[in-house]
């Protein structure tokens, strides 16, 4: 056993008759941040959907802490320590901030603890606790989503496109928190299309192109390869 917290082995998956992942191998070691980069349509989000249990793979295995979890319902994975912040804002727009945080308690943390962590880290959320989440700004919404990842103290955190549609300053602030979550012992898999910010935080980076992981390595090495991957060289 390699001791990886999350591992994908030879995962093939797709939508209907169209296969998107043609055998993905990926390892997320304990307490580390892995950045999964790649151009549009490479299969990054699909990889994440497979990892969190929303999309069953057609073949291959997904291991969480060494156990095969293919076929396990996403809600069970979530209750057992795999937290996912999906693409777009990972919030319920018609619930208030506080009600959104209450939804995090399915993972076994009580509401008081969730609120303590969330408001402690993001005081702005405390000011808006009774406001409907859909009326928050984009950055605040992403904070709320991230607060869940912070508060439930998961074993594995899957993050999809945290930076989407946000100002660079906000993105930097959010990735500061990602780094902090990583230091607390959580293993994190981050999917990003725009790589610069996340490479500063990541321990390992992987480039995905056309449904396979093309290369894995040190962030600095990978950064050099990026432009060729994106431009299809």
């Amino acid at each position, binding site marked *: 056993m390699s001791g990886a917290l999350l591992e994908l082995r030879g995962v093939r998956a797709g939508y209907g008759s*169209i*296969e998107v992942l043609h055998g993905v191998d990926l390892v997320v070691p304990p307490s580390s941040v892995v950045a999964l980069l790649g151009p549009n349509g490479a299969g990054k989000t699909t990889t994440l959907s497979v990892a969190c249990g929303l999309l069953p793979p057609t073949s291959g295995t997904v291991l969480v802490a060494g156990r095969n979890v293919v076929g396990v319902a996403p*809600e069970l994975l979530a209750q057992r320590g795999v937290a996912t912040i999906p693409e777009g804002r990972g919030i319920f727009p*018609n619930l208030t901030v506080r009600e959104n945080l209450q*939804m995090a308690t*399915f993972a076994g943390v009580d509401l008081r603890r969730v609120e303590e962590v969330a408001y402690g880290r993001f005081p702005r959320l405390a000011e808006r606790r009774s406001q409907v989440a859909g009326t928050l700004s984009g950055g605040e919404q992403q904070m709320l989503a991230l607060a869940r990842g912070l508060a439930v103290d998961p074993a594995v955190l899957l993050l999809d496109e945290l930076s989407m549609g946000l100002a660079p300053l906000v993105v930097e602030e959010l990735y500061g928190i990602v780094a902090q979550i990583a230091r607390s012992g959580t293993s994190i898999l981050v999917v990003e299309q725009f790589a610069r910010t996340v490479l500063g935080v990541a321990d390992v980076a992987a480039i995905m192109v056309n449904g396979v992981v093309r290369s894995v390595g040190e962030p600095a090495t990978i950064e050099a390869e990026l432009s060729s991957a994106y431009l299809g060289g």
Partner: protein
Amino acid sequence: MDKFLTFTIAGLSSAAIYAIAASGLVVTYTTSGIFNFAHGAFGMMAAFTYWQVNVAWGVPTIPAVILVVFIIAPLFGAVVERVIMRGIEGASDVVKIVVTVSLMVALLGLAQVIWPQNESRPVPAFFEGRFVEVLGVRVSWSRLLALVVAGLVAGGLRLLFTRTRLGISMRAVVDDRRLLQLNGGRPGRTAMLSWGLGAGLAAVSGVLYATEQTLSAVTLTLLVVNTYAVAVVGRLRSLPGAFLGAVILGLAQSYVTGYINPDLTVGPIALGNLAAALPAIMLFTVLLLQPEARLRSHSVGRPRAPVVVPSQTTAVLGGVALVLALAGIGALLAPADLILVTKGAGFALVTLSLVPLTGYAGQISLAQMSFVGIGAVAMATWGANGSPVAVAASVAVCAVIGAVVALPALRLSGIYLALATAAFALFCTAMFFNQQEIIPSGSVQVPPLSLGPFTADTDYRQLVLLAVLFALIGNLLVWLRRSAWGRRLTAMKDSPVACATLGLNLTSTKVGVFALSAAIAGAGGALAGRTFTADSFSLPASLPVTMLAVVGGIGSIAGAFIGGLLLGAIPIASTVFAANAIGVFRFVAIPVRDILSFTPGLMGISLGREPDGAAPQIAVGYRAVGRSVPALVVSVAGAVALWLAARTGVVTKWGFAAALLVFVVAAVPLLPLVLSPARPEDTAEPPRRLACGLWLALATLVAVAIPWADRIASNGLRVVLMVVAAALSARVGIGVLGVTPEQLRRPVPLSPDLVGVDRPMLRADAVEATRRMGLSEDDFEAEVAALASSTNGAPVGPVTVPR
């Protein structure tokens, strides 16, 4: 003053019942995104179950209430969610509406089978005979009970939805089902709970209502329209809004009953029915006052299987074939059967009216029979001599009324249009069709059309007239669909937002298509040439029309015809099966006629699995016939030969029916395979064409020769055996041939754009791409050879593509 107080208290207690019912409706809508048209039917089932348990079986009141309201109804709601509603999550508005409407019709049919209407079933009031004095007015305890229960429901729901995790996750599941899963919640269980809760609330209102009024399945089911009117005040989402609406409606109905003299008339219309029409009036008023709905740029839904729009030539040929087929079959029928087939053809015209509205534009109407009624009444009034001018006038009236009905609702979303049309149907029944001055003694005779020398005065002529009309309007619709306006309708169905950004006026387009649809339905009434009862224009009569049209496959003319056939087939089947019953261990015998009464509902519910309806599926089997000239010739020749044999009396009519069934079901779909020449891609074992052809001919001849009428006494058994024979012949035919049609169908080459996305590109793909670019295979080989020499003979791998 006493009178005022009495009616106020009566109004408030019915307001309490409406409020409870509406809160159940709002709960299921906000927590599952599905507007439950069957909500009233849930309450109705609960009320009857309560009667069964409490009165028929003698269980005391309190255990009976607990059993029905807290156990049976919630379980029923949860099962409905699990079995039916989960399948339509994410489907279009039309499918959601049709499935819940079908559930309502099926439950209504089921209730009438279990609890036949010919018996009166009084439900004793709670606390019978106990009263309190309020400001000098005697108020029964049961009325107070309704108020108390409404208060408890309001408080309980508020607590549930804002204070408990369960309640909040019920709201969360509507926002984002997958996100709730990723949080660790269980959306499936949450949805079942919310349907259980909704059904429980429906049961409370149903039981309370049943203790006040007489128990009637139809009345209780249609009570749901009052509930819509009430819920619309809160935009279907707000509980306080629904409570406010309930108070307004309850009081208004009570005061109208108390203060308006039922003999008062406005023109020809008596106001006795005004209380029944109030929910509809209220619904329209509220819709008019609503601000226009904001268009939401939600992502594009599930792509539908594309409906192939036929060319105008195909449509003309189809129309001619339809007229000939109906004229041919009609000539063979006994008078009693001819009437039924003619009625079926009339229904087909009504389902056809939904093709532009529902099929092209994605809007829905639950009041098509009301337009048929308006057309029929107008024609009876103005066109006693059958003049075509009167027909035109009747159709025009329907178009105008259709536009007026649609206007307030069209500014809002699809569900509001369904509500508005349902309310319109109820309004018409109360204020128009049930008026002695307008339809005396409950039936209206539509004069037959008279066009120059032609008068549709026999059933056969009427059938031919309807077939010609169907063909003409069908062709008109195909032409419209292919025009710029037709593209506009389809675009609007796909994405209203995108249309609005392109500068398309959504409202005028929708009003136009609704008026067209109402006009076609009106023509169906004005040209029906038969007697209608006022009942056949009611809401319960309109619902199956919409349901079966969608089941038939509303995107196409053929689908509308199938829907009409289904509608027409139900009365025919219940005549054929009149004497038959299906027994269960000799204990229970359910008459087939009763089962048929809720089949339309079941067919509609099945739509959740196949949202595009039957027509596209059937078309797949027969499309190959259209492409193969020999198959087409043999099909037509076979049908004509059978018809001639029947016409001349060589073959009995039952023999003709059986042979036609076998021929159409078994032989025609296999003919293209049997008659096509051998092809290179045939497998090592070529299909046994000759043997299969002989088998099909033999099966058809045997079907002709069996003395059906002499040997088998029961009509029902005869029909069942025929269907079995046809299915068996088809099965054996495929067996003899040795291949299935699917295996022989040429594989559809994947678009070159997709190669490499779903699988690595192979050499064959490269060859295919070269060919499509207009180059030959030799060019490809030359290119590969050149590439190989330039890479010093290194092998060209399977994924390398010459650039």
